[in-house]
């Protein structure tokens, strides 16, 4: 007779990927990737262009169907329970926009309804976020008239306002002003205390270093490294270096100076 102990939900991982692979025709975007993330962790997802970061995030959300492997988000499986998964996830896409022909407030109201928020709660959250991110007074304008950063802010609000348990942020801060970026960074850290898990794909190494509890480096669809800053330093055998040098070494792009010389000849 076998006894299976059911893990208590607070100890269950927030995210579990087992040998997930995804090919687009002959390009391997994700290569046999296995990953486990605990609740409340903040993972910084780094990697050169085309490494597969966005694809990985989309796969977790069920937007890209893996060729093989299994994915578990909270207690749900992807892609079987995608609607349930999406209810608990806040997603900020890399470069898609919200409905351009709605105003900011209309889109947020729409998003609140989609996530079935209480009317009062919805109003309160929206107003708080609009104020915090300096969008007050502009919420009645069409999204198509917003600046790049304002569009991003609307997407970030729509991802955060319904209090998701998992945040999938694909380069969320790259068009934000310093103050707004600081607010989001601090917010993510605060939420982490409340067991909200976050994955941030980013090229801004400073963010990864400052905010994330662990850092994952992807390269050609594979997970090159995953660990805290100290663990990464050990792996790269560069005990005193910053993240930039480690990143360049691990992804094999140290010969930058040589390339520049070639280009300026």
């Amino acid at each position: 007779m076998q006894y299976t102990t059911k893990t208590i939900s607070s100890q269950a991982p927030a995210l579990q990927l087992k040998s997930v692979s995804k090919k687009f025709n002959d390009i391997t975007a994700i290569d046999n990737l296995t990953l486990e993330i605990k609740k409340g962790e903040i993972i910084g997802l780094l990697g050169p262009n085309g490494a597969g970061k966005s694809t990985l995030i989309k796969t977790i959300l069920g937007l890209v169907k893996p060729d093989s492997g299994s994915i578990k988000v909270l207690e749900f499986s992807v892609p079987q329970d995608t609607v349930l998964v999406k209810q608990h996830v806040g997603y900020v896409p890399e470069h898609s926009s919200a409905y351009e022909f709605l105003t900011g407030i209309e889109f947020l109201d729409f998003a609140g309804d989609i996530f079935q928020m209480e009317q009062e709660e919805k109003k309160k959250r929206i107003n708080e976020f609009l104020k915090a991110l300096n969008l007050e007074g502009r919420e009645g304008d069409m999204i198509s008239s917003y600046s790049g950063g304002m569009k991003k802010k609307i997407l970030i609000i729509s991802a955060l306002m319904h209090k998701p348990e998992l945040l999938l942020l694909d380069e969320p801060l790259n068009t934000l002003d310093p103050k707004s970026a600081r607010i989001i960074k601090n917010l993510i850290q605060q939420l982490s205390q409340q067991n909200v898990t976050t994955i941030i794909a980013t090229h801004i190494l400073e963010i990864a270093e400052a905010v994330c509890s662990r850092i994952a480096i992807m390269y050609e669809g594979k997970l090159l490294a995953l660990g805290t800053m100290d663990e990464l330093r050990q792996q790269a055998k560069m005990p005193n270096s910053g993240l930039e040098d480690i990143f360049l070494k691990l992804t094999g792009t140290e010969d930058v100076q040589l390339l520049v010389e070639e280009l300026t000849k």
Partner: protein
Amino acid sequence: MNWKTVYLIVNANRKAYRTIPSAKLRRYYENKLTVYGEYILFCVIGILIGYLVGNFYSASNATLQTTILDGATYVFVSIPTIALLYGVIFTLINKAQQIGIKISAQPIYWFPISWQEHTLASIITSLIGAPLAITLLISSAILTASVFVGLIPLALLTVLALAVSLLLSSVTTEALKILQTRLLGAVTKVAGRGAIYLRLAIMISTMLAFYIIYFVIYSLVYNHGSPIFLFETIANGQKMLWFIPYVWPGMILSTFTNNLGIGTVSFFLATLVLIAGIFFIATYTNTRFGLYELPTIRLSGRTYTPKISLLEKMGFSSIEAALMKKDYKTIIRRPELGVLFVFPIMILVSGFIPFLSGAQSDQSMLLDTIMFFAMITLFPSMWVAGFLGSMLTGLEGSSVWYLFSSPISAKVIVKSKFFFTVFCSLVALLLCGVIGSVIFRPTLLYVAVVLFEAIFLIVTISTVSVAIGIKGADFRGNFPYNRAIKRKESWLHVLMCIATGLGVVAPIVPYVLGLLGSNGMALFPAILIPGYYAYFGLFMSGIIATITTYIFYKIALDNAEQMLAKPETI
């Protein structure tokens, strides 16, 4: 002007139109057949039609042959004017869709391209697609038929005039484009909240302007009785109105058939000068006002209070209600979607034909009542159902990622798209039904029959359209514009709508024939259909509609599930 640049822009615009399955995105190479296939198909159909007509002519006796020959001349002579009409409407629609696109998002504005090249390219680009296909169909049909009928020189000249007509229509709408944009912009600045509706109204009326002018003029010389009355009317009409530059392409042919060689040459040259003149105006307005972006509508100034919408009170979930509200807002705010309203209004206007044409017999009045009332009541709402149902999903555009990344099930998508389509169609039905009843005063039973049939049709066509619209959704909401539905599916959609629509109305057809026959219509023998057949016919229609709706609802669900299952293929 650098002709190569113009060619390059036109070619790039044509390519931007393509819908390519995502499996072929990498190492894409263009198959010539997919580029020209549709045009070739239209040519083949045209040749076929021409061949059939020609054979019919050859097989006829002498008297019939002279009648056909006269008719053919009328047809040829009126074709340029007809082409002008559809050319204007299609190119206006094409250009309207460019109005909404940000200038800063179009490379043409930051590449080294002169305004002349830009204008010419735009004029040519907007002829690609439907206008070109229709023109090829007409040209190949008349050329083939002319071989049998023996009107080869006239046919050749007609094709030339046709091309000139198309160019004239496109150059005209190009000159109007920027003025229209400016007008919309001025309205947006002044009108505040009302701007949304005012803009839509301006868009619709500019699209309709040509049609209405044309329509009013020709209904004044409209005359019943002849089977080719339309062509005869146009041919005679343009002779009367020769001083209006827009009938000059038609006059080229008209003078030719009357053996006025000098007239032909002068009208031809005059048309070319006209086109050149408008081209310079278009280039000038583009240069002067072209770098102009439509200001966005500001709705600020109200404090935000979330409210339970009427839809939710009607029993829709908050998700479904949210989706429908969003679709409504999107539709009335996108100026280019004025097309949605253009065709229903065109049909409504054409319902006035019997009134503009003056005196007529009781019998033709009865025919008008029966046919025109049904047309006015049925067609607009069916158009709305077919158009919205098939486009709604694709109109999500690039923002469709939100549907994919949110907790929305297939059922919710289908339900919201379906009910939204049905609601809009019912509004159209109500408006047109009331107008039709007031104009034609049909019997109560006939009103009831048409109304019920309309509802059956709306429900059926909405489901069919939503199902196919999801399957063929084209989400590339960027330049040149959002096609919303892929080519293959849009053809399938048209065919399925016709097939299911005919299926639904089939049981009621004997009743209508009986109605016409019992009133002694010459065309129909007095078919004896008992009075209660109307109820039976309606009942059968209802059953067919229910079954079709059920089947297509299931298909729609299936399609939506497949769409949600693999967003990456989009």
